């Protein structure tokens, strides 16, 4: 009780009150500086997400080595399928739970108007099921995916592959394919008996988290707490020193 009175007495001294008012000002300032950095963090994230969500031409993304930040990005590409270059990927499910059906994925060589080739996952068919491939030029809307890197030494058995690997398909088809592959979302014009479109594994392109602004926000708020702690300690030490005197 006595020590509480001692601190209260110290706190009510004019100089302590002035410092307390300054402290409130500093804390408010630091809070808003932290909030400003927090808002900047959110704005940068939103801008990056909007940029990553914008649909761009496949040509801007495809190449010998994909940029991992483009995985999950939606692109458009116009060109035509090479009906002689088709691969079936085995043991792939369509649907989920009890209604899941085992079938195959159909991967085709797609030649862009500009001459580049890319492996395109057109969709799912039942085992050895039939499907149609448009012979004329089509416009694809598709999602960029990395090669399926698991089972590196996977072999094709009876013409059916275990995974999609653009390097393997390049040597099989004798063309230079882009790294990774595209998962079709839609084909225009639509084929009457096209494989059933499958969802891409990676659905949204990753964006870099603005760590610097996020840490600045946290640091401003910790500075405010530190200022309060400093004030409390100053009151305690001052009252103790008064006691000694």
């Amino acid at each position: 009780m006595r020590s509480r009175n001692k601190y209260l007495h110290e706190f009510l001294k004019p100089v302590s009150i002035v410092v307390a008012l300054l402290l409130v000002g500093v804390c408010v300032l630091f809070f808003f500086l932290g909030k400003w950095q927090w808002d900047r963090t959110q704005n940068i994230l939103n801008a990056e997400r909007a940029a990553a969500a914008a649909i761009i031409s496949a040509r801007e993304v495809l190449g010998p080595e994909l940029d991992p930040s483009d995985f999950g990005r939606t692109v458009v590409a116009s060109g035509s399928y090479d009906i002689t270059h088709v691969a079936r990927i085995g043991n792939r499910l369509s649907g989920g739970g009890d209604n899941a059906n085992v079938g195959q994925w159909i991967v085709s060589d797609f030649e862009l108007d500009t001459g580049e080739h890319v492996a395109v996952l057109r969709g799912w068919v039942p085992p050895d099921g039939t499907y149609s491939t448009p012979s004329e030029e089509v416009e694809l809307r598709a999602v960029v995916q990395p090669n399926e890197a698991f089972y590196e030494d996977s072999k094709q058995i009876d013409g059916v592959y275990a995974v999609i690997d653009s390097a393997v398909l390049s040597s099989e088809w004798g063309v230079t394919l882009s790294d990774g592959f595209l998962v079709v979302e839609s084909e225009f014009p639509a084929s009457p008996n096209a494989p059933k479109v499958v969802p891409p594994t990676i659905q949204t392109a990753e964006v870099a988290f603005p760590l610097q602004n996020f840490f600045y926000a946290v640091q401003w708020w910790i500075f405010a707490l530190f200022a309060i702690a400093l004030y409390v300690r100053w009151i305690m030490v001052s009252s103790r020193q008064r006691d000694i005197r």
Partner: protein
Amino acid sequence: MNKIPSALLAFRIMAWVTGVVLASATVWALLGYLLWGYADDGGKPGLYSLLWVAHGWLYFAYLIAAVNLAFLLRFPILKTVALLLAGTIPFASFYADFVMHRYVRNLPQTKADASQ
């Protein structure tokens, strides 16, 4: 036990570490904005951003070391605040370290003993 020498050493270490990081980041920023067009494209290297973030966290350690020393030396509040702010002004922490060492060296023995 006299706590001042160890508090002074802790302050010296933090003043120099924080000071070197802040000075490097400041020189880098000046070169970046004046010569390398950081203001235009925002394409700053990762290490540059890391340096500023590192200064923020190192400054906390500096604050703790500085507050500890200021309380041991019974500094008034304004002097304490000035010591704390020295960690945010480029090159000021080196001067603060120099001043603090001179202050402690010239301290009457009685004051040093009182804080034992």
